[in-house]
């Protein structure tokens, strides 16, 4: 099947388009080298976690849906690096990255995928429901778009409590067509709620490309109808993403002004593990793989003077961690049947 030519993904920095000029809050606080390395580590960890998950799915260790984030890692990393650890976030079912980057250890991560009692949500939620509330990661949600009013509500609560936080609410490009999202947009702007709707535009809603599901394809423009700020940025480059994320986050935090932040990215794998991806060509995928977010950041870090052997050591450590986590998860018990009836009511 023919696919239309997609926008290229240059490693551009900052916003490529917006509905109004971005505010100028001066330079973004510098991320020390250790911090940058840590974000690199988290992106790499996510990639390796999901490569292992991919194998585990194929060998039958994982049932149900499993939506991989391969190729999109700079979206979660860059945005999460642009806000404080105490800022709440919430996302859809493509949630491994956000979970791991917000403190879920790979062990409980795998254990969840494998349906074990030691899973991060006790085997009750699976791949689509990575929660880590103690680190302000509020899930992992399976109904498309249904997390958008939740993110609004988390942000509302921080404002109600006078906390000066911002909530990043992530969603796919396909989710912009859910009515609840629009209700959330109007409420956010009307009530001045510090929430940023981060659209992870990977150009497909399952097998439906953006131009076949949304009018127009510039999704950040949906903000315009609400007098809200809408921003689009390329999102394969961690630093570029972090910068634009920080700006819209600060705006939300300081001025209680919400925004849509549309981040252009690409997923290498099928929509979920069961999707053969017949709706796009191998060439298209290969083209995008050339702008791999992890490769881009690796190159940047090396060029900034980190020694390659130090990076390799870090990577090796991650790979070992993944193997061990996988094995730990596999050795974990399945939940007891009595667990069916717990956690229904508080």
């Amino acid at each position, binding site marked *: 099947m023919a696919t239309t030519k997609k926008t290229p993904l240059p490693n551009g920095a900052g916003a490529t388009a917006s509905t109004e000029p971005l505010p100028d809050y001066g330079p973004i606080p510098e991320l020390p080298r250790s911090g940058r390395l840590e974000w690199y580590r988290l992106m790499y960890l996510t990639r390796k976690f999901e490569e292992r998950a991919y194998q585990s799915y194929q060998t039958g260790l994982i049932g149900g849906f499993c939506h991989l984030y391969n190729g999109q890692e700079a979206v979660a990393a860059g945005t999460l690096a642009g806000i404080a650890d105490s800022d709440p976030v919430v996302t859809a079912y493509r949630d491994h990255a956000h979970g791991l980057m917000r403190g879920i250890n790979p062990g409980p991560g795998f254990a969840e995928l494998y349906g074990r009692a030691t899973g991060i949500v006790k085997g009750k939620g699976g791949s689509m429901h990575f929660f*880590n509330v103690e680190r302000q990661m*509020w*899930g992992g949600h399976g109904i498309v778009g249904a997390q958008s009013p939740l993110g*609004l*509500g988390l942000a*509302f*609560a921080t404002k109600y409590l006078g906390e000066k936080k911002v909530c990043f609410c992530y969603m796919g490009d396909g989710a912009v067509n859910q009515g609840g999202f629009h209700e959330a947009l*109007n409420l956010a702007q009307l009530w001045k709620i510090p929430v940023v709707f981060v659209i992870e535009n990977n150009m497909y809603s399952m097998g439906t490309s953006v131009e076949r599901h949304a009018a127009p394809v510039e999704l950040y423009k949906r903000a315009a109808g609400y007098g809200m700020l809408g921003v689009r940025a390329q999102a394969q480059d961690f630093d570029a993403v972090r910068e634009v994320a920080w700006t819209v986050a600060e705006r939300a935090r300081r001025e209680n002004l919400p925004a849509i932040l549309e981040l252009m990215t690409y997923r290498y794998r099928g929509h979920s593990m069961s999707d053969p991806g017949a709706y796009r060509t191998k060439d298209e995928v290969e083209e995008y793989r050339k702008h791999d977010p992890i490769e881009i950041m690796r190159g940047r870090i090396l060029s900034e003077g980190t020694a390659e052997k130090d990076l390799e050591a870090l990577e090796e450590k991650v790979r070992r961690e993944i193997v061990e986590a996988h094995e730990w998860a596999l050795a974990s018990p399945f939940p007891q049947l009595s667990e069916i009836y717990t956690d229904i009511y508080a």
Partner: protein
Amino acid sequence: MAKIAYRDAVRDAMAEEMERDSRVFLTGEEVAQYNGAYKCSKGLLDRFGPDRIIDSPISEAGFSGLCIGAAMYGLRPIAEFMTFSFSFVAFDQIVNNAAQIRYMSGGQVKIPIVFRGNSGGGHQIGATHSHAPENIYATFPGLKVVVPAFAADAKGLLKSAIRDDNPVLVIENEALYGRESEVPDGEYLTPIGKANILQDGVDLTIVTHGRSAWTVLEANQELLKMGIRAEIVDLRSIKPLDWPTVFASVRKTHKLVCVDETKPFCGVSAQVAAEVQRACFDHLDAPILRVTSVEAPMPFSSALEDDCIPNVARIIEAVKEVIG
């Protein structure tokens, strides 16, 4: 004990709980400046200010979801539906998010939220506006559903609901807002999950709830004249449902009529009948009969509508048939 209107009991419950806990807030359409479409929040804007009494646009999915998110974060929202019929545009938020996020998060999250608003027919507001949805919501594990019939329970159950750490649907009834009944003085809570025996009896059990409880009491005047002494059980809570009280009553009277305003097909009465025949099989002397809303959308004309919800005539007919 003072006699107050049901709507004032609702208001008092919210006011007392908002006074007690600053995390409680109220939103919904017309709840603030208008004092509530049915005046259930009269004076609350003046008392608690616009940060806690918040007029919403007509965005039920949006404000329901907002409240669920806020509840996850630790607030204790009260979301008012102008009527529960309008909750259907927020259905997914209620039955998937409010009901199930705790479970799907492996218990990491609590969702202390109250959804409240009126329900039911009898006011000529037509098929879309007259739903009695307690059966529908009660089918979902993770939700609690209460349907107060009297001012005392309207207050006590709503207070309990606000303090409950789970999503609780408090389904009121437009016909009841203006009705006065006695309310205990001072602070009290009505426990969720406890039925209330409105009248002891021996001849049969009538299980009812909500507005139908009043209709049953009205019918009861006739029954008493006929020398029939019914045990009248007001469920108050639909979920959890107080089975011990229901079963004990049926084991005593050996006969049961269920009266409520949900539809017949998979309505609350179906659940009660199914459980009672199982638990009280050997005690039952007659088939359980059900008096429900009829199997039709709610018509507008008053000439038709009165026959569509349980009324005195249909209750008496059912009782007579069961008594034999």
